[in-house]
């Protein structure tokens, strides 16, 4: 009775004063999720520092936050004390290494981590502002290894369907060459034969090696994502599977493990996060994909389309009685986590690392992303979808250089580990799906530029390109 009353009071406070935005930051590995989150947190904190010390690091968001009298309605931003089971996102550590004298980019993410911000804002109406005081917007952000993302589309498939798809893909170049040992092994395996533990372990190791080989040549559509990590001694036994067509004892055993893996993903990853979010940003490292050749680009396109389709149709987590996928619902705080219909409000697709592209071509990058994602995302019923080309951390400056006697738009940046700035010419960025003539055999990895100078106490924010527009677009309406 008393506990109930106290719970009700806490919920009432949450209901009246707090609005929760669960922001899903999605993207394949290396897309820039961790950097994006670090810069977002840093710039929001710089914006919301105590009176007189804040900096307008996110002009477009500030504009969205202007009250009727022209002053910002923002009252403050702080990182909330951590609660819950997930590990805390090590924001301070990441900022420290980015802003160090010899700066370093964050290491690839190994596990899930969460950070929550409280953004205090004045209410909009004059009456509400006077009577009810400020409002708290709680922004929950999750970081995770990008490889895991492609496990979500996996949830929709049966073992047979997945095997057919995966093997068909594996038999096309350039995968076929990398996966030759595994494909040879498959040719010698009888799916109907008795399950041979040694052969299965060997098949798993070969499949895993094939996936890692594909990753090494820039391919991105690799399932299951967890196979890309180095095999560990404590890998659960159900992890040891590989795609196999046909029926029989071996196939049956593998199908069982596949199903166990699906359950595992659903429980540890999907249920903790992907079921409940109301805003989503999908980061795509389009430039790297473009330069890694046709197969890598098509892989990225496939992944983007798959994720967008998941947004539309759900992840096979089951449909609700009203026929809408679960992903379209977020729990209401008032009902204590029960799922009530509330559509995903907004989705932003972002081509990251746009600081590798001079200003004039950024629009092309954005259009290319739109061409890629729109066919799959276009069917999204509710959410407002926006497309951006942005850099969470601006590491370059626009300039011009003479290339083969002609003046060209370039960006200037210091390659990590070098002592002097160089000009980088990004080449053609098509503004729509590239024609066949675009592709050549050359393979080019994007230079890794040294992060810019960042004031270590966080008072000046992190230089960025267009982060404010993304934020204004994504959460401006809820502030």
């Amino acid at each position, binding site marked *: 009775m008393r506990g109930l009353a106290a719970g009700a009071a806490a919920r009432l406070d949450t209901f009246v004063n707090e609005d929760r935005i669960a922001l899903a930051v999605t993207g394949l590995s290396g897309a820039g999720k961790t950097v994006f989150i670090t810069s977002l947190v840093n710039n929001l904190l710089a914006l919301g520092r*105590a*009176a*007189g010390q804040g900096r307008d690091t996110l002009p477009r968001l500030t504009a969205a936050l202007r009250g009727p009298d022209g002053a910002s309605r923002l009252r403050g931003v702080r990182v909330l004390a951590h609660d819950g089971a997930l590990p805390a996102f090590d924001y301070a550590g990441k900022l420290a290494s980015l802003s160090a004298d010899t700066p370093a980019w964050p290491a690839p993410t190994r596990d899930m981590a969460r950070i929550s911000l409280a953004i205090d804002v004045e209410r909009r109406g004059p009456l509400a*502002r006077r009577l009810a*005081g400020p409002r708290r917007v709680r922004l929950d952000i999750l970081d995770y290894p990008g490889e895991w993302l492609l496990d979500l589309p996996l949830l929709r498939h049966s073992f047979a369907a997945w095997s057919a798809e995966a093997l068909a893909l594996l038999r096309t170049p350039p995968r076929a060459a990398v996966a030759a040992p595994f494909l040879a092994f498959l040719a010698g395996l009888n799916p109907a034969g008795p399950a041979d533990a040694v052969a299965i372990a060997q098949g798993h190791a070969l499949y895993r090696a094939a996936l890692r080989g594909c990753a090494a040549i820039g391919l991105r559509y690799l399932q299951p994502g967890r196979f890309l990590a180095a095999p560990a001694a404590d890998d659960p036994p159900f992890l040891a599977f590989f795609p196999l067509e046909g029926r029989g004892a071996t196939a049956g055993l593998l199908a069982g493990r596949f199903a166990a893996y699906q359950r595992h993903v659903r429980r540890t990853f999907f249920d903790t996060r992907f079921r409940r979010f109301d805003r989503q940003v999908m980061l795509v490292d389009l430039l790297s994909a473009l330069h890694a050749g046709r197969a890598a680009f098509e892989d990225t396109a496939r992944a983007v389309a798959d994720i967008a389709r998941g947004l539309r149709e759900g992840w096979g987590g089951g449909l609700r009685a009203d026929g809408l996928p679960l992903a379209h619902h977020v729990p209401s705080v008032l009902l204590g986590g029960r799922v009530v219909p509330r559509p995903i409000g907004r989705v932003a697709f972002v081509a990251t690392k746009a600081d590798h592209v001079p200003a004039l071509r950024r629009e092309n990058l954005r259009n290319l992303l739109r061409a890629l994602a729109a066919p799959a995302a276009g069917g999204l019923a509710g959410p407002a979808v926006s497309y951006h080309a942005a850099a969470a951390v601006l590491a370059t400056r626009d300039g011009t250089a003479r290339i083969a006697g002609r003046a060209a738009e370039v960006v200037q940046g210091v390659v990590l580990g070098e002592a002097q700035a160089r000009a980088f010419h990004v080449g053609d960025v098509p503004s729509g799906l590239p024609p066949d003539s675009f592709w050549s055999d*050359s393979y080019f990895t994007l230079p890794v530029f040294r992060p810019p100078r960042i004031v270590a106490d966080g008072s000046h*924010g992190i230089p960025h390109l267009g982060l404010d527009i993304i934020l204004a677009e994504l959460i401006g309406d809820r502030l």
Partner: protein
Amino acid sequence: MSPDPRPAEPAPLRQQAPLLLEPEAGAPAVIDSGWQPPPLALRRPARTRLGWLAGGLATLLASWAGLAAITFVEDLFQRSPALGWAGVAGFGAGLAMLAVAAAGELRAWRGLARVDRLRRLLAGPDAAMPAMRAAARDWVAAVRPGLPEAEAVLAALDGAETAAALRALLRARVAAPLAQAAGRVGRQAALEGAALVAILPHPALDGVFAGLRGLRVIRQVAALYGLRPGTLASFALARRVVWTAAGTAGMDMLAQTMLDQVMTTVPGVRHLAAAIPGAGVAAVRLYRLAGITASACDPLPPA
């Protein structure tokens, strides 16, 4: 990290290929992208029309009542001087009481504003030192009744050269004793709360009682901090307390550790809590409320 190995002889350059050029002579070692975000002062929004509206209405009402009173007293004088004087005395007394009440409210509002101002100043840079010291002096003077060594602190204020030193001084010699006093208020209320819950005839009354006692805790603690809230200011204060609680400490309100702590600091509560369900919870809430009110009234930024 670098382009694919290019053939030694200059190949015809395809315009579309990405290219990382060699550094030019004198190229800088660090790129300055010209990032210089302008300062952004998060000021409180300016007063709105609502204030004028309320002011206008109040002026109308006051002048109407004043004129009516004058004509009424004139009327009385015309009947008999004695009646007239009686009327003057009555109105005068009424007006005086209103004025006292209004002054009290005004003082309380000013007190709240003073806390806000000092909080802003204390969080600010060293440059504001004189203003900071003056505001601190005001605050210490206001909390003098609850502070045994107020004079010594006032003398020590002049010795503080930097904002950090001033903050440290205020924290150690003003905020700490006040917080202790608030703790005493909380323990007293906790004991009373537990005892009262024990004798209340119906559990549904617990909440009503706890609410009333809670308001008193807020006012007692506020008084300790030099704020003597009137009725209106009490509401503003209660709102602020709720806000502070929700932002900082709301979640541990009922945590087991909290319960244990109160049980050990307020001995009487333990016996009551063991015997009567709910007594412990009421006690914890009141105790906690005192602490939260104290942090809402405390102008020092968190250490």
